[in-house]
């Protein structure tokens, strides 16, 4: 069995007048795999290339060198373009700039309409997709009447209606308030649990990565870490040096270790820290 998404040695450049050779390197040899049903979080400081990487996963950008394969099909091959884009759906940062229609159900219909599906099948998908993100009651509402979290859930429903096997969230929670972020994360988590859809979450909120299966850290267009969140965050000092914010718990644990408390290095949830501290106290 191959991987659902396979990124091999991808390099990508943006034209840039000021830089050497007239181009700026955005991705400098990235390797990454995503398996069916997997939750992969990708973090990196600004300019680390994480959004560029995201756009490679469904052929919005094509690699200058290397290759991206989705379900075994190269994104370079124009024959597979639409298959790849319906396999890997994408949700973007600004909810206002990705909703096409002035009616929620019409927007959800946009993808399936592009696929040329029969009307009754599209109507079925509208209903099931909106229900899956908890927006079933909003089908006849106008997007501008919705909150940020609701709009982003509509955008997810729009992707879902194409029945993808992977959803890429490109900083999809960055413009939302904490409540909206929570709404979106819960909706995504449910989709993965109930429908087995793989999730690639590009983010700079370290608090969101603890529940991922894998945490990939990008820096300067390269993958500098690719492991379980626990293993990556255990290297808190390194992570901080890459300009990333460490989750509060890990940071606190790190400070306590510096003060000489014998705490384990891989604490990522508040509950774990509490338990470790309690154990420490009862043992002394």
């Amino acid at each position, binding site marked *: 069995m191959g991987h659902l998404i396979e990124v091999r040695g991808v390099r990508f450049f943006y034209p840039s007048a000021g830089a050497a050779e007239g181009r700026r390197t955005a991705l400098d040899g990235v390797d990454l795999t995503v398996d069916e049903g997997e939750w992969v979080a990708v973090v990196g400081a600004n300019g680390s290339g994480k959004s560029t990487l995201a*756009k490679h996963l*469904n052929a*919005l950008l094509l690699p200058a060198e290397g290759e991206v394969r989705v379900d075994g099909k190269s994104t370079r091959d124009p024959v597979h373009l*639409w298959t790849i*884009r*319906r396999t890997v*759906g*994408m949700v*973007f940062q*600004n909810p*206002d*700039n*990705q*909703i*096409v*229609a*002035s*009616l929620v*159900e*019409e927007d959800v*219909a*946009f*993808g*399936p*309409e*592009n*696929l*040329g*599906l*029969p*009307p009754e099948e*599209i*109507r079925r998908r*509208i209903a099931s997709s909106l229900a899956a993100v908890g927006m079933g009651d909003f089908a006849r509402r*106008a*997007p*501008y*009447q919705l909150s940020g979290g609701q709009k982003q859930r509509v955008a997810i429903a*729009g*992707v879902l209606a*194409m029945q993808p096997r992977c959803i890429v969230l490109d900083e999809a929670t960055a413009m939302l308030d904490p409540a909206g972020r929570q709404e979106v994360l819960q909706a995504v988590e449910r989709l993965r649990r109930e429908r087995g859809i793989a999730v690639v979450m590009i983010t700079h909120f370290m608090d969101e990565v603890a529940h991922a299966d894998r945490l990939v850290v990008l820096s300067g267009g390269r993958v500098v870490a690719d492991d379980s969140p626990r293993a990556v965050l255990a290297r808190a000092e390194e992570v901080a040096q890459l300009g990333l914010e460490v989750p509060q718990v890990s940071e606190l644990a790190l400070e306590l270790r510096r003060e000489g408390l014998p705490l384990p290095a891989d604490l990522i949830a508040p509950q774990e820290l509490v338990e470790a501290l309690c154990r420490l106290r009862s043992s002394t």
Partner: protein
Amino acid sequence: MPDALTIGHYVPGDSVVHRLDSRVKLLLTMAYVIVLFFAVRPGAYAVLALLPLAGYLLARLPLRMVWQGLRPVVAVLLLTLILNALMTPGHPLYRIGRLAVTAEGLQVGVEMAVRLILLMVTSTLLTLTTSPIELTDGIESLLRPFRRLGVPAHELAMMMTIALRFIPTLLEEAQNILKAQQARGADFETGNLLRRARAMIPLLVPLFVGAFRRADELATAMEARCYHGGEGRTRYREYRIARSDWVAAAVTAAALLFVLVDRALGV
């Protein structure tokens, strides 16, 4: 703000008129407007006036909406009446210096004014009872046969859809920019027309830059959702011609035919 956003002032409802197929309504309105300019005798105008009147009543729209639809064109109506009355050669009824109000002029002027009133009232009925989305779908569907002649039916409809979608977003953005500029001491209210027009520049520039950025992001998002033009695209909404559509078409056709026959006999 949502009140200011109702484009074409659509009044949602569930009446017979609301439920008519948008293509039927569009075609009937077009036929009506054409025939309107063939009417000559008062009887024909009376029949033509009855059609929109019946429409407003069936749509359960308050009749003051007729007046609301006319208010913006009152000046044009008066101008039409005055110019026609003065400029048409014929028997002078009343002299003002070298100008004279002629009997023929008065007749032509009144006739033109009545035609304009009926035109406005009927097309307003269309936009009052048809949602912008249905209207867009109707236009796309009616233009489809002309695609071979190079009419970009789908592209026009998609542009209208996106424009409708972004009007509230851009209005909100304009408000934000306005407040931001005012907070920095910008003055949009005082001075003469030229001064105020110049004051709009710091509002319009960021608004346009923002709109282009949005357009770019939207295009990427549309491509990510497999958009590749109208080719092979289906619609989830299906429109079917119902019996009420046939009845509306038959009644309108009969009335319009009466007007045409009346002209053929009368001249």
